[in-house]
């Protein structure tokens, strides 16, 4: 994925439920015409695992093909991820690689963007109270550990700077 001038910059866009439109749009707006796009979606493994675990907890009922909700969730998740990536590619409107990963979101994103020239992602986390902890765990991890430049965008229009609370240090003038 290493970017060279002849091939154009390589841009990885992290596609997440609910926030992918902003990431795709931002990726488009900052990338030159020849940029090579990779749309990346990570299905968190622990969701289907939890359903599978609950099924194992149903002691004595653990058989019968097609009954394990973990397997059903895996299938549903794969279909849903494929659908999301297809819609993201539509919105992008350029040639792109679609990458679908099953695992731990933050680590998968860092690994997949290691050789890229830019990673575009949307803020997650509780944005109603902005502060040191307003980035969610996954976004925080990627911002801290990404090996390439990161463009972090708001999923909705960014708030006006007038919403910043007044500084606790009084102005000396």
């Amino acid at each position: 994925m290493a970017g060279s001038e002849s091939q154009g910059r390589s841009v990885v866009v992290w596609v997440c439920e609910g926030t992918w439109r902003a990431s795709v749009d931002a990726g488009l707006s900052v990338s030159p015409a020849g940029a090579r796009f990779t749309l990346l979606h990570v299905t968190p493994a622990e969701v289907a695992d939890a359903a599978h675990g609950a099924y194992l907890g149903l002691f004595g009922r653990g058989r019968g093909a097609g009954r394990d909700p973990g397997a059903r969730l895996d299938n549903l998740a794969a279909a849903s991820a494929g659908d999301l990536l297809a819609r993201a590619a539509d919105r992008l409107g350029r040639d792109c690689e679609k990458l679908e990963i099953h695992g731990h979101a933050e680590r998968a994103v860092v690994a997949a963007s290691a050789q890229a020239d830019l990673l575009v992602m949307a803020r997650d986390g509780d944005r109603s109270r902005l502060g040191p902890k307003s980035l969610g765990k996954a976004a925080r991890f990627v911002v801290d550990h990404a090996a390439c430049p990161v463009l972090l965008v708001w999923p909705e229009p960014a708030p006006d700077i007038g919403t910043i609370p007044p500084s606790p240090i009084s102005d000396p003038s």
Partner: protein
Amino acid sequence: MGESIALLALVAVLAWAMIRPRGWPEAVVAVPAAVILIAAGAIGGSGAITEARQLGPVIGFLAAILVLAHLCDDDGLFQACGAWMARTGTSPRTATGARRLLAQVFVIASVTTAVLSLDATVVLLTPVVFATASRLEVRAKPQVYACTHLANSASLLLPVSNLTNLLAFAASGLAFPRFAALMALPWLAVIGTEYAVFTRFFAADLSVRPRPDPDRREKDTSLPVFTLAVLALTLAGFAGASAAGVNPAWAALAGAAVLAVRALARHRVAPVALIRAADLPFLLFVLGLGIVVKAVVSNGLGTAIAPLLPAGTSLPALLATAALAAALANVCNNLPAVLVLLPLAAPSGAGAVLAVLLGVNIGPNLSYTGSLATLLWRRILRQHGSAPDLGEFTRLGLLTVPAGLLVAVLALWVSLHGVGG
């Protein structure tokens, strides 16, 4: 001699049920184990018959509920729930948000678990909830975790909500409505605790607003009114049967029969599917396990555990009982745990039996599979080459289980004084 044979048999039954070699039914070991214990004299023939007589109606009740849930699913009840959540979660007139969906999932999962048992929530509802979350472009993790947690902790309300409840219901001698009246407050208290923890624990995931594809129309899923009416009548039948001195299992059987006849007449379900839904190997497993546990308890385990179980129904005694039950449920599984503890708690009265239930139903949320033994086995097995990430699930369990147990026991204590034990 009898003691060691019985213990050996129990270990073999539990190990087989956890490992399930080649996916063979659990009854394959449980039933022969029971027969061997009877033949070896570890449990008297009359003792085994008494246990089977006690378990028979419980197992029949369970079979009826399993069939009822299956038929509700066939008639599109859970699909309709999903469609309702997707529709109202995106209505322009209502406050949208993943939190709203979580609240809806809490309501539907709690009611489904209470009325149609935890099996229905785990097997039938969870995939629908996941699909709904995907459709709304909401992070699925809090919603799916809510289903797995509520399948356990919201299974307190009715005797039909959990097999453990059915067993305790038979042991407690409580009438159906009285059981529900005593457990209503603990049920609500635990659900409230779970909700409070979930909204904080998953604040980041829940801040993503649902963004359904505007081009995608929700399928028009009509509410299965007939099925809902039969369910409502079945619930009324539980209370009515109890008042008339009839086993409420008959109400479940009647409800299942009405839905089954209708589905068969409309060729919407094959008779084989109904028999499969009743899960005969599972019913045999429960019977075998019951007899094996009875042999173990009467051969020394009962006297070994009895001193640990406090007598009476004072608040500290209820707390200690629930904590012990939760611990035991986490070591092996809540089914053997409840079978061991019920005969010991029953002499202290219904309050103690219900405290055992709080422990064995809420406790399993502490570990990923509801049992450390299963968990360890899965870790050793390492299926698919990757072990599940247990950190987050365990942290969530540590936040919800002790708090849930505490508020539930307090609520039970209040109920016992308000409604009367």
